[in-house]
């Protein structure tokens, strides 16, 4: 800030010289003259840009008769050209990095605010929310109090209604969704899991080891092997984490049971395996959702911090 009584850096004669040099530029005219190349002509107190007649843009001077003050017959010259000038900034989709869409939304700021942009995929948008978090759109509720979809989001992809246990409600088929819109049970409709060929024990061990299929490892998981073997043996199962319950080979124990393959005991065993896998996936989903929420929150905090310092 310049203090009112502060001494000007450029002072006295230097400032006057600058003003004298700038004034002719303010008195600039563009005219069509008898020249072959465009010229800039200086005179005392004025600058003229002289354009040759015709030229690239077909510039011409149109003489306009006028009645001037006191009935004085006079003339005005109207510079015309056949070339259209560059479009105004409003005619382009983006100009100088300015997002026209954002400009357009100034007339209706409720349609697109910073916080609303952070919703991204918008899976957290819930139809039944109480609206208490309208002003905290970077917050994703895990329960039924999902953030309401605002009018400003009209035009975007339709989001499933309802908050749901995973913050994303359910899709049109009733599948529960994560906050980012991914299905919690991608293996099939109605929540059934696709059989990945692993036993409950193997799946559990895989989860604890952070190597569960295409799921990313959780924080704190041991380093990943370079390539995952397509078939597993008992020896491939990494050691359990500290504090983990002892592993048991469910397949071995089932085979050692009294039931015959295909009998009731086998059905119970398979049912238990599916239940175990489902529970494992559910826990994985919970931790994944939590991880994503933490990451989003961290990114939001980082952006907010950067904005404050910019």
């Amino acid at each position: 800030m310049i203090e009112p009584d502060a001494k000007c850096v450029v002072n006295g004669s230097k400032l006057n010289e600058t003003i004298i040099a700038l004034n002719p530029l303010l008195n600039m005219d563009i005219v069509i003259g008898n020249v072959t190349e465009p010229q800039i002509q200086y005179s005392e107190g004025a600058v003229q840009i002289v354009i040759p007649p015709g030229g690239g843009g077909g510039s011409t001077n149109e003489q306009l008769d006028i009645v001037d003050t006191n009935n004085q017959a006079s003339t005005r010259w109207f510079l015309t050209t056949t070339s259209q000038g560059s479009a105004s900034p409003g005619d382009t989709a983006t100009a100088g990095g300015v997002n026209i869409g954002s400009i357009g939304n100034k007339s209706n700021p409720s349609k697109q605010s910073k916080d609303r942009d952070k919703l991204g995929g918008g899976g957290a948008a819930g139809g039944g929310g109480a609206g208490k978090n309208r002003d905290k759109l970077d917050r994703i509720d895990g329960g039924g109090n999902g953030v309401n979809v605002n009018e400003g989001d009209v035009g975007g992809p339709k989001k499933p209604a309802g908050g749901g246990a995973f913050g994303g409600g359910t899709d049109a088929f009733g599948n529960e969704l994560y906050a980012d819109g991914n299905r919690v049970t991608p293996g099939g409709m109605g929540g059934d899991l696709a059989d990945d060929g692993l036993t409950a024990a193997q799946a559990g061990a895989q989860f604890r080891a952070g190597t569960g299929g295409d799921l990313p490892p959780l924080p704190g998981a041991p380093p990943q092997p370079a390539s995952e073997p397509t078939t597993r043996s008992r020896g491939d199962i990494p050691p359990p984490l500290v504090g983990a319950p002892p592993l048991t080979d469910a397949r071995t124990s089932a085979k050692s049971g009294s039931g015959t393959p295909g009998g009731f005991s086998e059905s119970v065993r398979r049912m238990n395996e599916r239940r175990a896998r489902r529970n494992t996936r559910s826990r994985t989903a919970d931790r994944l959702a939590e991880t994503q929420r933490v990451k989003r929150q961290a990114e939001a905090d980082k952006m907010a911090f950067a904005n404050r310092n910019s």
Partner: protein
Amino acid sequence: MAILRYGPWANIIPHATQGLYQNYDQPTHLPSAMPPTGYPVNCATSDWASGAAWSSLSVVYSDFDPVYFYEGPYYEEKPINTQISDTANLFAASCRLSFHYQATADFTMSMQWTCNPLLGYGSWYYEIISLDSNGDKVNDQQQTQFGDGATTSYSGTETLDIPASTIGTVSCYVDNFGSDYAGDTCTLKIS
């Protein structure tokens, strides 16, 4: 404030409350017995800066029409301060001058006329149409009939007070009145 030129020829749209004018290019058939479209547009009493001279449209009835046996009108473009005259060959003599004007300030012109009716009757007339600040037409008409049946020479000079207007119309004429005798004469000049 300056006024952009109308025209170069224009015509007022009749029966309009507001002064509505149509612009035309200069007619190519003058002088002619055919009426041109519109009247020339002038800058008060001056020539236009582009070089177009002040002019008015004159109409006289001195020509003899071999078909209809009456004096048909004859249209010409006349410069300022030019006297036009008419002598009746078969019927009455009549001279008319009309023009449009544009002015940023009030100004005056003079209308000089003479009339020599053989039966001693005649008239002069002028009308000034201007536009007020709302664009509505303002009419100023003056008309005088003269003659005692015996005097055969009349003349006069009328001052035309022409108000500022984005566009206006001036028309004036002088003629014999009710004589319809060959040999009647009249002259008219605008300056």
